[in-house]
């Protein structure tokens, strides 16, 4: 059964339509990647799912419930957490406070154990727990953004460009962590410009181009496809 069903979703900024009828599904336990160049509408899609943008058409269903017009804070309570583009950690709050806020919708008694689990996953965050999040390196901030979303114990984790602006070696380590998160059974919808890394993590992929899904396939086929190699994967690398 599909956890997330998006049908003919449209989002516009004034006159400009950023999503022109996007349909996709994510099944429980799956990792799905959305690939596309800058301006394809990837971040718009993520913000729309989380309820941060009004929709001009179409529907979003989560576990059979229509959440097209549901408020952002309700959507978190239903089980969708997001690590947003640009990380958006609370810079003048400590690492520990950021993680605790991730569990804002959960019973306060259960939050400390989840925060400890994040420290175990990212020991760097444990060392810096009393530091202001704004003083962390880009990679550490990304770990914090992902960890913060996980403390919400989401059924669906949305990841918007987790590799953005990070050094290759940091990207590798982030994706290793994402692999182990996926292996615990968390359903993930990831948006990435780094198509190769995303497809290695994902089961399936969609290709988004100027507001439309133009292609979808299993991650393996997308990785192998000549067209994809040329457009998104960069031939020279392989």
């Amino acid at each position, binding site marked *: 059964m599909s956890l997330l069903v998006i049908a003919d979703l449209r989002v516009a900024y004034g006159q400009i339509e950023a999503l022109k009828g996007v349909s996709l599904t994510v099944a429980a336990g799956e990792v799905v990647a959305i690939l596309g160049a800058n301006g394809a509408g990837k971040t718009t899609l993520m*913000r729309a799912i*989380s309820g*941060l943008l009004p929709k001009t058409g179409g529907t979003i269903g989560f576990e059979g419930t229509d959440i097209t017009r549901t408020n952002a*804070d309700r959507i*978190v309570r239903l089980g969708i957490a997001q690590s947003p583009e640009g990380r*958006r950690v609370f810079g003048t709050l400590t690492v520990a406070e950021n993680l605790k*806020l991730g569990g*804002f*919708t959960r019973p306060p008694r259960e939050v400390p154990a989840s925060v400890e689990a994040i420290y175990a996953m990212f020991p760097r965050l444990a060392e810096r727990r009393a530091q202001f999040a704004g003083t962390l390196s880009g990679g550490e901030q990304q770990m914090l953004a992902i960890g913060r979303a996980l403390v919400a114990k989401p059924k669906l984790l949305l990841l918007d460009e987790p590799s953005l602006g990070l050094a290759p070696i940091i990207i590798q380590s982030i994706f290793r962590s994402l692999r182990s998160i996926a292996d615990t059974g968390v359903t993930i919808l990831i948006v990435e410009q780094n198509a190769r890394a995303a497809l290695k993590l994902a089961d399936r992929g969609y290709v988004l181009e100027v507001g439309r899904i133009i292609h979808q396939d299993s991650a393996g086929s997308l990785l192998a496809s000549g067209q994809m190699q040329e457009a998104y994967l960069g031939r020279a690398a392989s």
Partner: protein
Amino acid sequence: MGTFVQQIVNGLTVGGIYALIALGYTMVYGVMRLINFAHGDLCILGAFVGLTMLTGSAGGGHPGAALLLLALVVSIIAIAGAGVLLERIAYRPLRKADRLAAVVSALGASLMIENGIMLIWGPQVHVFPSNLLPATTWHVAGATISFVQVMIILASLVLMAALYLFVNHTRFGTAIRAAAIDQDAARLMGINVNRVITSVFIIGPGLGAIGGLFIGIYYREAYFTMGWTYGLYAFIAAILGGIGNIPGAMLGGVLLGLFNAFAAGYVSSSWQDAITFGLLIVILLVRPTGLLGERVAEKV
């Protein structure tokens, strides 16, 4: 020596009041990036509500501490309610509009409250009863300290400490700070930002009502344009401390009160404002973001 101690006490009294009112400006600005120009008028509305409670029910005898406490509670509830109403009517419909529209709305709300006070209570200066509190005074190091001063200083300190603990050490307080940093990121945590905004329009005007009533009790008067006078002082205190920063508003209020008192005590009360604001200009030239304001550049 006597003058020095005296001005410290006077400054702390007035500074405590400024700080209570400044917190309302700074909390609303922190979450909404909006200067609530009607805040000073709300505070003075609090003084009038309190005054009505005090005079309306005093049967000539000693009103006493119990009545004063009752007046405070009623005034806090009334002004917090007015604050919530103000946000719903004057600011919420304009949240997505141009920022200038909200400023105009704030100024309009200020005029409406000010004139509303005049319509209800009249344009004359109202005198607060003199028998509210014991006339006890203490003589310390050549200075005279009154009961009212001690009460105001202690109450301001307790309230500021309570607010500080609430904002820094509770779940909802952390949510308020998060919403002040990044509203969308706060929404992604499951925080209902509308509820946070409502809460700052309860806490700010609630503390402001106490500040307004303290002004009435300390100076023993209330008049309908008082909101502008004291609102401006408190607003400047918030800027001095770094607007948006809660400990900054506390520090700014107390410092402004002390400047004021020392200028009045050592130079002349007619030069008090000129000297106070001169100092303020110097401080802001050195630290444009205020004493505790952040110097961080906007992150991309």
